């Protein structure tokens, strides 16, 4: 996973043509840790601190009325003016695209970035919205009923990607 994140960091810098105006925003929960590590890689290589933020999209979901409130709403930390910046959203798994749709809505309430890009560790296909990732760590092919979970050491005690087949629990 470290190697993949290092490559993603390179691609993000490449995509942005440097680190000027770059802001990396992780989506709660595990996107935040991945964003931290990508920023650490950039710092190690270019010796520059890239501003980071965290986004909790719970309150922007389109299914609050159907599934009920999530137990705990995470925190959103975006102490930067996003206007004119190049924002890279970082998330663990890209599936239907609904989380990213919500994240785009939420970012719009914080300013008008010059550009927003999307970087995900795992793209599992199965989009329900016209959304695509600009930087992808790994593409995997799984059935719609399978679960794909990314584990990060900070939360789960180890790094990894777990695929739970239909009927099994992760």
């Amino acid at each position, binding site marked *: 996973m470290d190697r993949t994140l290092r490559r993603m960091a390179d691609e993000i810098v490449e995509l942005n043509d440097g680190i000027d105006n770059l802001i990396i925003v992780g989506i709660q929960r595990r996107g935040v840790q991945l964003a931290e590590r990508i920023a650490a890689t950039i710092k190690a290589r270019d010796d520059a601190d890239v501003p980071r933020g965290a986004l909790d999209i719970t309150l922007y979901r389109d299914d609050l009325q*159907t599934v*009920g409130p999530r137990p705990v709403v995470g925190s959103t930390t975006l102490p930067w003016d996003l206007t004119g910046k190049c924002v890279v959203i970082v998330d663990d798994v890209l599936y239907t695209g609904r989380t990213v749709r919500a994240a785009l809505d939420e970012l719009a309430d914080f300013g008008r970035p010059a550009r927003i890009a999307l970087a995900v560790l795992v793209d599992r296909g199965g989009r329900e919205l016209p959304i695509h990732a600009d930087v992808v760590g790994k593409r995997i092919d799984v059935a719609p009923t399978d679960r794909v979970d990314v584990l990060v050491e900070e939360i789960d005690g180890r790094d990894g990607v777990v695929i739970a087949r239909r009927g099994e629990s992760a």
Partner: protein
Amino acid sequence: MTSALGKDLLGLEPLTPDQIRLILDTAEPFKEISERAIKKVPALRGQTIVNLFFEASTRTRISFEFAEKRLSADTVNVASTGSSVQKGETLVDTARNLEAMRIDMVVIRHGASGAARFLADRIESNVINAGDGTHEHPTQGLLDLLTLRDHFGDLTGRRVCIVGDVLHSRVARSNIWGLKKMGAEVAVCGPRSLLPWAIGEFGVTVFSRVEAAIEWAEALNILRLQLERMTAGYIPSLREYNRVFGITRERLDRAPRDILILHPGPMNRGVEIDSDVADGPHSVILHQVTNGVAIRMAVLYLLAGGRPELAEAAKGGSER
């Protein structure tokens, strides 16, 4: 599926410690929303909420209204004056008529204890009690808990004394239930005529001298002396009340520790609290008001979710 809190929020007495903790934890991220340039999230978009206020209120009504608007709900305010209530319409008829216009939630303040429960049992919409008679004022109790938690962290074993007119105070009752469920030690202090006759049954310590309460407490929640209810001779005079029970700088200076000062407002400066205490360094009175919006957002949000019939229809709508 009902929400984690059930259909309504009527008081803190029926809640479990875990439910109270869930509300307080949910309020944390909502604090940040009020700090944003655009203070609005779409969580309750399309929900209609009626604020039904049969008693005067500024702070609570405005706080609920901000909370509702910052969650993108549509709101209507109904006050008893200038509405059909003045023409003698009963509470339940008013609410049923509103419900016939397809509303989702009712926030009710009423002079009769039990009014919120009465309504909740008779309509489908979620009901939030914004103060009923001398019974409970749960969101005030919750915002007091949140404010205390901001300062103390864990409330277990913390000593909180409620001072003043406990007899008429729904704030006192919600505070006692909530604090005890969070593991705090609770005391009350006031003239005997302003304490409920059976106060012992709440399981709280009773101080008859405010000096003793100040020596014991880490936080004082100072209740408003409800002047509108003071015609029945509960106290000899406001001046005498201030002299015996008023929280003054001189009294606090003799305390063995710094004491956190809370007041649910509106304050009678110079009666139950002196100005230099209310505006002093250990006063968290305005912090309570700020927390009030976050707590009400959390309650609205937690009650709003969970419509089983919609969940069925949207099955397959997935996480990512």
